[in-house]
């Protein structure tokens, strides 16, 4: 930096930079401390939010579905056709899918085992297909869940034997994840007509928005449950809300850990600046002797502390962005998936870095400014 530029335009800043460069290692260590604190806050924050986003990508798709299950006080284990009509009326105008469920013996390579079987009229509305297709008006054939198909090596066109009856595999489903009302991954799905009884283990009500889902759920509760609990209504919207709260707390906890490390870093700046005031006593005395007021001395020392915070904060932000890109790539498959929250963490972490520099520098700077020049100049 040429003496004509920075030193002349911003003399205090220039003084501060040169003072810091006097003990490079010590200044660097203090700045690294701040950098680590900033990295901890920003990276942990971004980790939390990226993790949340990756989880919410699963939960979000079913956040609008309402599950209706037989309640404690229902006169039987499953819903009857009549009860299903009641639910359908209550849910209007929302559409619903009734689900039958059974366990049948399936013959596999290793013998015979109990197998969960769902009866769903239109499984294509709930699940994605990865192989084959489900005909519009489904009367025959069988649909196999992702995991079961993989383990048993089942493909479309294969024959499956359930309770002695053979079905042709028409489609294999995609992995439906874990957060679903009906989990088809380890199951097979038959047309409802393939079930002996017309009773239903659960009903899924489809809605376009979470708000609509909540209203539908409320209507079903009002219509079906009086004093007795005939149905249990399960909303994913509420669950999503709870999960959001959980993630919020997790994030605060992670950022809290980061903040602790920044406090530690602040202590190291405090230490560096205190050492500096002791070592530079004579110099402070000279500044006072040549006519620097207390506030001028305070400014010089505070600027040094702020510079440590600025350097550490900047380094911390650069590293954090790199780490953030890694986290985003890992959780979201896109290294540049920085959202508003990530930016808030970056700006917040940077501000905390400079802030902790200033706060830690305040006491040493005040001490330096209060130093008695006579004492300071005494050898």
């Amino acid at each position, binding site marked *: 930096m040429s*003496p004509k530029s920075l*030193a*002349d*335009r911003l*003399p*205090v800043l220039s*003084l501060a930079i*040169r*003072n810091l*460069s*006097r003990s490079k290692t010590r200044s660097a260590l203090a700045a690294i401390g701040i950098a680590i604190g900033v990295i901890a806050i920003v990276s942990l924050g971004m980790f939390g939010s990226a993790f949340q986003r990756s989880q919410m990508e699963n939960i979000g798709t079913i956040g609008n579905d309402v599950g209706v299950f037989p309640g404690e006080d229902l006169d039987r284990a499953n819903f009857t056709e009549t009860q299903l009509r009641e639910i359908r009326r209550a849910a209007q105008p929302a559409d619903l899918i009734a689900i039958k469920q059974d366990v049948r013996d399936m013959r596999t390579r290793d013998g015979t085992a109990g197998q969960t079987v769902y009866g769903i009229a239109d499984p294509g509305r709930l699940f994605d297909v990865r192989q084959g297709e489900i005909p519009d008006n489904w009367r025959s054939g069988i649909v196999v869940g992702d995991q079961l198909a993989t383990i048993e090596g089942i493909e479309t066109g294969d024959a499956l034997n359930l309770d002695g009856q053979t079905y042709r595999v028409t489609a294999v489903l995609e992995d439906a994840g874990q957060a679903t009302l009906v989990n088809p991954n380890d199951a097979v799905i038959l047309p409802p007509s393939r079930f002996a009884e017309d009773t239903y283990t659960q009903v899924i009500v489809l809605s376009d928005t979470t708000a609509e889902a909540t209203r539908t759920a409320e209507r079903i509760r009002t219509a079906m449950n009086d004093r007795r609990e005939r149905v249990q209504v399960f909303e994913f919207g509420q669950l999503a809300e709870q999960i959001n709260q959980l993630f919020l707390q997790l994030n605060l906890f992670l950022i809290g850990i980061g903040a602790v490390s920044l406090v530690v870093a602040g202590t190291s700046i405090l230490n560096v600046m205190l050492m500096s005031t002791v070592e530079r006593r*004579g*110099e402070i*005395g*000279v*500044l*006072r*002797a*040549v*006519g*620097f*007021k*207390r506030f*001028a001395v305070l400014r010089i020392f505070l600027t040094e502390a702020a510079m440590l915070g600025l350097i550490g904060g900047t380094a911390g932000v650069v590293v954090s962005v790199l780490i953030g890109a890694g986290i985003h790539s890992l959780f979201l498959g896109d290294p540049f998936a920085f959202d508003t929250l990530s930016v808030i963490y970056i700006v917040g972490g940077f501000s905390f870095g400079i802030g902790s520099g200033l706060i830690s520098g305040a006491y040493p700077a005040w001490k330096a400014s209060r130093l008695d*020049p*006579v004492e300071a*100049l*005494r*050898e």
Partner: protein
Amino acid sequence: MLIETRNVWRRYTLGGEIVTALADVSFGVNSGEFVAVVGPSGSGKSTLLNLVGLLDTPDEGTVLVEDVAAETLSDGKRTELRRDTIGFIFQDFYLIPTLTARENVALPQLFTKSASERNERAVALLSQFGLGDRTEHTPSELSGGQQQRVAIARSLINDPAVVLADEPTGNLDQNTGTTILGEFERITDDGTSVVAVTHDRLVTDFADRVVELVDGRIGDTTKETQHVS
């Protein structure tokens, strides 16, 4: 009188005991006068210099700078008065090691003058003391004598009425010391007073007046008759 102390007392507490550093000292400096203050260690020389230099205030008595009683001023006002009327020179030069000679000389004007004004003045002063080719050198690149001349230039940047020097030749060899004292003579020729606290015989040879302090009291004053106004 440019600067004077009237019946000044200064006491310190040292290890629970009260030590009287200055006892009823009345001392004054006239314009353009070179006064040497001598005396054994602990005789109160530095205390006197600190009082006259407005770095310290007396317990009793008064310090007058251009007829202003220093102890009535706030710390800020006293600092301003010090900046505008007094220059300091120290035994250890006390240059800021990270600043160039020019920047060290310009330092007292950091908050009061524009960069071009203070730099121009600093370079002019350095040239005046034979350091025109050393303005961009840092103190570590200068000899002791050169450093002390930088310090003298710094003490003069605000055109002070008086320059206070604490053992100005203490860290210099005799030849360099003589050169520095020659510079002091030039300063006094321009009307600026110099007060030097010293053990050095050489300084007393150059001084217009020598004031001796013994146990915090004014003792012998020699050469006094020549210059008292």
